[in-house]
């Protein structure tokens, strides 16, 4: 038990709702914003913050998928096919984390993120139908999803930041549909990590309950906004977040 005050619990609830609404809008789950907020502003231990964030990602994925299913926004089959290499990669990455020098990986991830920004800025809108996508580069995309999963397992960063542009750029999926498909996939990826942290005893009810409830609310707001948002706006917001993540990774690489 962490013995938190009511103000602190309400603060965590608000931060989780904010991070989750952005996460649902961009198909990223929100952990990338939530973890720095919890550790830096609330002084929560990193392991506890990551554990709570994984549950927040699951809650976000569930709520966003429910909201998006009404509009049939996501591509279920593509999510099922990409989920496997991404989850497998995350597991391989989390096992290999002890053998690989992380500083180079932070720089690599930072470089890839900035490269993604350039690609997104230069890309033209060209959307393919579900049937055409099945023929289009599925093997290549699966391999990249596996690599994205490994990086996410090694660095503790959600693979969504790489999977979303992959679906949009390589598979020519419309931005909003790519966001919804990414949201659907996040649940299973988060479940693997959440089970591990739960077994280790890092889940604390005082922290998890406000984080999860805030995430549920935030995901509902974010997914509702996604339903009305213009694809260009979603893309611009994603680019801003990519730059933030790229800088964060570069800074971490510099610190290690």
């Amino acid at each position: 038990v962490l013995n938190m005050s009511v103000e602190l619990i309400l603060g965590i609830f608000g931060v989780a709702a904010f991070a989750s609404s952005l996460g649902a809008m961009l198909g990223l789950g929100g952990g990338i914003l939530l973890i720095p907020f919890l550790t830096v502003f609330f002084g929560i231990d990193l392991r506890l913050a990551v554990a709570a964030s994984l549950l927040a990602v699951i809650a976000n994925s569930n709520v966003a998928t429910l909201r998006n299913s009404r509009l049939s926004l996501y591509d279920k089959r593509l999510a099922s096919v990409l989920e496997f290499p991404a989850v497998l990669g995350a597991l391989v990455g989390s096992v290999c984390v002890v053998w690989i020098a992380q500083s180079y990986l932070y720089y690599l991830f930072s470089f890839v993120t900035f490269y993604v920004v350039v690609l997104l800025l230069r890309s033209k809108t060209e959307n393919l139908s579900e049937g055409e996508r099945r023929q289009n580069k599925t093997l290549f995309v699966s391999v990249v999803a596996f690599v994205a999963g490994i990086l996410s397992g090694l660095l503790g960063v959600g693979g969504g930041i790489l999977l979303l542009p992959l679906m949009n750029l390589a598979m020519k999926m419309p931005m909003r549909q790519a966001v919804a498909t990414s949201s659907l996939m996040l649940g299973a990826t988060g479940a693997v990590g959440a089970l591990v942290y739960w077994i280790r005893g890092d889940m604390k009810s005082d922290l998890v309950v406000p984080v999860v409830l805030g995430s549920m609310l935030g995901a509902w707001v974010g997914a509702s906004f996604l339903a009305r948002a213009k694809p260009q706006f979603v893309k611009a917001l994603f680019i801003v977040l990519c730059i933030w993540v790229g800088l964060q990774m570069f800074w971490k690489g510099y610190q290690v």
Partner: protein
Amino acid sequence: MKRKELLLIPYVMRLGLGLSLVLFVLTKLGEFLEILPYAETLWQAGMMVLILTPIARVGVMGVFYFSQKDWTAFICSLGVLFTILGGLLVALL
């Protein structure tokens, strides 16, 4: 069949989400009012339901792909379930 598929995922999600939400709120409310016994067990159950929801969703989708004879998607769904099991074993060991 298309409609059946459309109904499956939201149904599983709604059930898992609703149950975990009720358990979480009940636990915190019970703790706050000091009226609820077994609060720790209830909150652990809520967490377990939340974690199991996406896993159940993958399982349901796997069954659907099997019924549709879409073997690529079926193997991928099965692969996700085995990977989760593998992750669990790695954590336990």
